[in-house]
C-alpha cells in the first residue's frame, strides 16, 4: 500500500475534473467522492504499521538540498484519518446539499484540490514542503469560499481570507528560514533540539513565535481572526470541512509537529506563555462575540475560533498532546454541528438567521438530535468526547497558569450559553417564519453523515489508534471529582440555566450588546489602519512624483537645455546680416588657419 497514493489520488481527481469533466457534474461529484473514500481506506490500512516512503529529491544544488518526502508517524497517520474520514462524510453530504448548484463540477474539483493540499501538510516531511502545501491549502480555501463568486460578499471574503493568511505566512517564512539557519536542515526527523542551547533565549523564542505566526494566520487567532467569520460565505459543507475540522487545525498540527521534532526542553517560557495567552484571549473574545450573533453559521464560526483558542492555549502550555486530542474530538463534533446547520439551512430554503427559524425539533428529528449531541460534545457534557478533551486542556491550564484556567472556565460557560441559545431559538419554540413552518427532514444522503458523526462524537476518544498524538499517548478517560471537573460542571450549569431563562420561547433577542455583535470593531479598526497607511504612502509617492521627478528632474533638465540653447540663439540667430557676415568671416579664417598653418 504505497503511501504516495494518498497524495496522487486527490490531485488526479482534481486534474481530471478540471481538464475533462467540467460539464459533467454528476461524474465529477462521484469521482471526487470515490477518491476521498479510497484515500480513507488507504489511510485506515496504513494505521498501526510501520511504513516509510523514500523521499524524492527536488532541489540539489550547492549547499541547498530540498526533498519531497512523507513522514508517517502516529501524529500524521491519526491526522490523515481525521482529514479523510471527515472529508468523505462532507463529500457525501455535498452530494445532497449542492444538488441544485450550477457549478457542481468546479466545487468538487476544488474539494479534491483541498484534500490534496491538506494531505500534503499532514504528511510533509520537511518545513519547506509543508509551507508549499500550506499556501496550496490557502488557495483551495480561497477557491471554495469564493465558490459563489458572483456575490460580492463571497468574493470579498475569499480575498480577505487569502490576504490575512499571507500576512501570517510572512512571519512563518521568516521563522522557517531562521530555523533552517539554526538547525542546518528543514527535515523534521533530522531536527535536533539541542542546537538551540548555544543561542540566547530571545533568539529561540523569536523563532518559535515567528513560526507561530503561520498558525496565527491559518488557525485564525487574534489578531488575524477576522477572516474566519467572513469565510462562512462559502457553502456549508466547505465550512464544515475546511473551517471547522481540518484547515484551521493545520496551525495546531504544525505547532505539534514542530514541538515533536525540536523537543520542548529548550523552548523559552516567555514564548510559550505568549502563545498560550494568544490562544486564551482568542477563545475569550470569540466566545463573547458569539453570544450576540444571529446567523447560525457565524455562531458556529465563532465557536470554532474559541475552540481553536483552546487548542493553541494547550500548545502554549507545552502540552501539545492535549491540544491535538482536542483537535481530534473537536473535528468530529464541529463537522457534525456545521453539517447539521447545513441541513437546517437546506430545509429552511437557505435561511440562516436563527430568529427566523424555530420549532425545528418537531419537524427534523434526526437533524435536531444529532445537532444536540454535537452541542453536548462542544459544551463538554460528561460522557461525550468533548468532555475528555476539554478536561485535558483545563487540567493543563490548572497546573501551569491559574489566570488562563479561569479564562478557560469562563469561556466554557459562555460556550454553553451561546450554543444553547442557538438550540432554544432555532429548534424549540414556535416557527417564526413560513420556511421554518414547512421544513422537513433532509434526505438520507445528508442525514447519514450526521448520524455517523454523532456516533463519533461519543466514540472518538476510545479509538486510540486514530488519535493524532505522539506514539503511545493515552488520554485520561475517566471521571473523577476534582477542582477541574467541578469548575467545568459549574460552568456548564451556569451557561445552561442562563440560556434557558433568557432564550426559551423568545421571539427576539432580549440582550443587546453592540460591542459583541459588531465583533469588537476589529474590521473597522483594520480598515482604518489600512486607509491611513495607504493614504500616507499615496501622499509620499505623489510628492515624489510631482515635485522631485516632475518639477526638479524633468523640469530642471528642460530648463538647462533651453538655457544652453538660448546662449547659441543669442549669437547665431541674431537676425542681423552683419552679424552673420562676421561669423562667416571668422569661420573662414579658422578653416584657413587649421588647414594651412596648424596641421602639418
Amino acid at each position, binding site marked *: 500500500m504505497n503511501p504516495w497514493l494518498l497524495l496522487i489520488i486527490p490531485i488526479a481527481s482534481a486534474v481530471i475534473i478540471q481538464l475533462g469533466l467540467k460539464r459533467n457534474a454528476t461524474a465529477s461529484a462521484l469521482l471526487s467522492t470515490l477518491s476521498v473514500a479510497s484515500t480513507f481506506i488507504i489511510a485506515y490500512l496504513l494505521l498501526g504499521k510501520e511504513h516509510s516512503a523514500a523521499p524524492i529529491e527536488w532541489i540539489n544544488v550547492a549547499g541547498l538540498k530540498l526533498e519531497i518526502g512523507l513522514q508517517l508517524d502516529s501524529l500524521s497517520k491519526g491526522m490523515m484519518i481525521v482529514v479523510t474520514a471527515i472529508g468523505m462524510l462532507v463529500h457525501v453530504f455535498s452530494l445532497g446539499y449542492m444538488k441544485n448548484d450550477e457549478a457542481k463540477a468546479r466545487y468538487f474539483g476544488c474539494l479534491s484540490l483541498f484534500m490534496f493540499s491538506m494531505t500534503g501538510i499532514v504528511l510533509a516531511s520537511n518545513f519547506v514542503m509543508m509551507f508549499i502545501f500550506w499556501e496550496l491549502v490557502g488557495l483551495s480555501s480561497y477557491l471554495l469560499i469564493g465558490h459563489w463568486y458572483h456575490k460580492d460578499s463571497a468574493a470579498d471574503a475569499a480575498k480577505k481570507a487569502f490576504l490575512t493568511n499571507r500576512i501570517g505566512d510572512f512571519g512563518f517564512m521568516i521563522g522557517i528560514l531562521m530555523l533552517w539557519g539554526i538547525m542546518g536542515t528543514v527535515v523534521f526527523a533530522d531536527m535536533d533540539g539541542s542546537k538551540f542551547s548555544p543561542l540566547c533565549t530571545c533568539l529561540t523564542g523569536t523563532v518559535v513565535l515567528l513560526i507561530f505566526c503561520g498558525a496565527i494566520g491559518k488557525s485564525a487567532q487574534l489578531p488575524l481572526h477576522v477572516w474566519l467569520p467572513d469565510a462562512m460565505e462559502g457553502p456549508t459543507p466547505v465550512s464544515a470541512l475546511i473551517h471547522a475540522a481540518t484547515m484551521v487545525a493545520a496551525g495546531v498540527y504544525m505547532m505539534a509537529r514542530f514541538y515533536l521534532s525540536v523537543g520542548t526542553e529548550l523552548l523559552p517560557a516567555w514564548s510559550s506563555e505568549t502563545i498560550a495567552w494568544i490562544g486564551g484571549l482568542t477563545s475569550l473574545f470569540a466566545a463573547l462575540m458569539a453570544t450576540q450573533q444571529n446567523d447560525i453559521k457565524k455562531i458556529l464560526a465563532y465557536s470554532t475560533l474559541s475552540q481553536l483558542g483552546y487548542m493553541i492555549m494547550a500548545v502554549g502550555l507545552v502540552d501539545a498532546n492535549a491540544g491535538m486530542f482536542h483537535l481530534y474530538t473537536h473535528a468530529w463534533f464541529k463537522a457534525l454541528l456545521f453539517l447539521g446547520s447545513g441541513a437546517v439551512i437546506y430545509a429552511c430554503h437557505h435561511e440562516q438567521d436563527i430568529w427566523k427559524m424555530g420549532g425545528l425539533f418537531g419537524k427534523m428529528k434526526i437533524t435536531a438530535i444529532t445537532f444536540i449531541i454535537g452541542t453536548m460534545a462542544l459544551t463538554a457534557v460528561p460522557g461525550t468526547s468533548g468532555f475528555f478533551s476539554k478536561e485535558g486542556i483545563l487540567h493543563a491550564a490548572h497546573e501551569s497558569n491559574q489566570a488562563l484556567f479561569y479564562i478557560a472556565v469562563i469561556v466554557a460557560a459562555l460556550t454553553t450559553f451561546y450554543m444553547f441559545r442557538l438550540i432554544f431559538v432555532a429548534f424549540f419554540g414556535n416557527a417564526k417564519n413560513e420556511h421554518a413552518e414547512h421544513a422537513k427532514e433532509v434526505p438520507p444522503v445528508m442525514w447519514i453523515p450526521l448520524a455517523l458523526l454523532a456516533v463519533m462524537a461519543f466514540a472518538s476518544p476510545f479509538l486510540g489508534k486514530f488519535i493524532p498524538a505522539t506514539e503511545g499517548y493515552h488520554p485520561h478517560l475517566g471521571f473523577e471529582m476534582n477542582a477541574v471537573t467541578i469548575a467545568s460542571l459549574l460552568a456548564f450549569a451556569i451557561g445552561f440555566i442562563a440560556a434557558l431563562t433568557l432564550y426559551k420561547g423568545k421571539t427576539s433577542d432580549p440582550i443587546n450588546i453592540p460591542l459583541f455583535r459588531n465583533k469588537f470593531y476589529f474590521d473597522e479598526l483594520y480598515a482604518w489602519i489600512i486607509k491611513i497607511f495607504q493614504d500616507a504612502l499615496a501622499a509620499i509617492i505623489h510628492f515624489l512624483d510631482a515635485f522631485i521627478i516632475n518639477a526638479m528632474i524633468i523640469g530642471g533638465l528642460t530648463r538647462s537645455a533651453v538655457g544652453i540653447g538660448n546662449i547659441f*540663439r543669442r549669437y547665431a*540667430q541674431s537676425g*542681423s*546680416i*552683419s552679424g552673420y*557676415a562676421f561669423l562667416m568671416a571668422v569661420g573662414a579664417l579658422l578653416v584657413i588657419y587649421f588647414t594651412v598653418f596648424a596641421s602639418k
Partner: protein
Amino acid sequence: MPTPSLNEYLIISGLLFAIGLGGVIMRRNIIVIFMCLELMLAAASLTLVAFSRFNVTDKGLPDYDGQMLVFFIITVAAAEVAVGLAIIVSLYRARQSIHTDELTSLKG
C-alpha cells in the same frame, strides 16, 4: 625709387582684402556692401597677378598661370554682380529699404 618686391604687392592686396571684409561686415547700405565684396575680389586678383609677375620659371619665361586665373575671376565677378543686383532690386521691391539692419525676419 627702388622697385617694389613681391612682399609689398602682397601687403597691399592683403590690406585691400581686409578693408573689403570690414566693409562687408560693418556697412549698412546694401550697395556699399556689394562694392566692398567686389573690392575683396579685386584684392585676390591683385595677389594672383603679383605672383605671376614675380615667379619666373622654367627656361626664363614668366609664369602666366596666375594671369589666366584672373581672367576667370573677372568673368565670374561679372556674372555674380548681375545676379546680386537682381537680388537687391527684388529685395527693395519686397521691403522698400536698403538698410540691412532693418532685415531681421531670420531672428529666432
